[in-house]
């Protein structure tokens, strides 16, 4: 056996393992990797500037941690409903899938509603993105996160309509897993934004 053939034979199970991963799953993880760089860069900048410049704690004291806590609970619950929707779709329980998808969408909308209420109060008190470095980061990071939540809501709503119309089945359930991965990632980002902006 030639050395090339030996290498191919030796690598065969590993290569087969990689080929067994759906290309869509690799694609969504690749997207999430780029999102890690986006939010990671922002969070790193925030941490470094906060350590090197004083006076941030006084500005951060004006955010309402009670609303942030409520929003965290809402987003964590939406992750549960998303996981339950995927589980129901794998069992071919169509009505249950649609119900949990709708709940996920509604919880996402509730998150945005609470965030909008928060923004309104802060702006009324005179805290705008130009009020200081903390507020620039606060509006920048939570605003970017809210855009991601909005995108997730649109995707989940699309899948809800597909589930109700009966278009989500016949092997298309894997797409719901990719939407779920994105939604859970948005949740993970918020898990770190919450203590960064509200509790520290």
């Amino acid at each position, binding site marked *: 056996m030639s050395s090339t053939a030996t290498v191919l034979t030796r690598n065969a199970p590993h290569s087969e393992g990689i080929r067994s*991963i759906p290309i869509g799953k*690799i694609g969504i993880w690749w997207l999430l990797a780029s999102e*890690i760089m986006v939010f990671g860069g922002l969070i790193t900048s925030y*941490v*470094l500037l906060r350590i090197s410049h004083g006076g941030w704690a006084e500005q951060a004291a004006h955010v309402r941690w009670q609303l942030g806590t409520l929003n965290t609970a809402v987003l964590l*619950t939406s992750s549960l409903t998303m996981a339950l929707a995927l589980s129901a779709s794998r069992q071919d329980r169509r009505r249950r899938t649609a119900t949990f998808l709708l709940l996920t969408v509604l919880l996402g909308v509730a998150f945005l509603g609470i965030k909008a209420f928060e923004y309104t109060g802060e702006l009324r008190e005179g805290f705008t993105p130009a009020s200081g470095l903390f507020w620039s980061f606060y509006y920048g990071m939570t605003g970017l996160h809210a855009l991601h939540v909005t995108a997730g809501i649109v995707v989940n709503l699309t899948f809800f309509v597909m589930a109700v119309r009966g278009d989500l089945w016949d092997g298309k359930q894997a797409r719901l897993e990719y939407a779920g991965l994105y939604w859970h990632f948005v*949740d993970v980002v918020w898990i770190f934004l*919450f203590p960064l902006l509200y*509790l520290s």
Partner: protein
Amino acid sequence: MINMAGDDHSYVAIWGWLLGLLIAGVFVFTLHLATVTLLFIIFGVAAIKAILVVRNYMHLKAEHVLIYAIAGIPILLVIGMLLALIPDIVFHR
């Protein structure tokens, strides 16, 4: 065969842990501890919550090593960027 009903119970249990950790983190915040202690606890709690979501809801515990590599490399890059910039930004004011 995967026991889906078991999975659902596990998802609900993980959600209970996530809410419990959220309440614990906020409770610690209200105690007005020393800043370093507070930061250590609340970011420790956040890390545990993130691991719970990633491992259980995103099913990373059952994924191929390639997925770990795709997700892990940018995290290492972000940590590397943070460590590389600390001397310039934090210590050279």
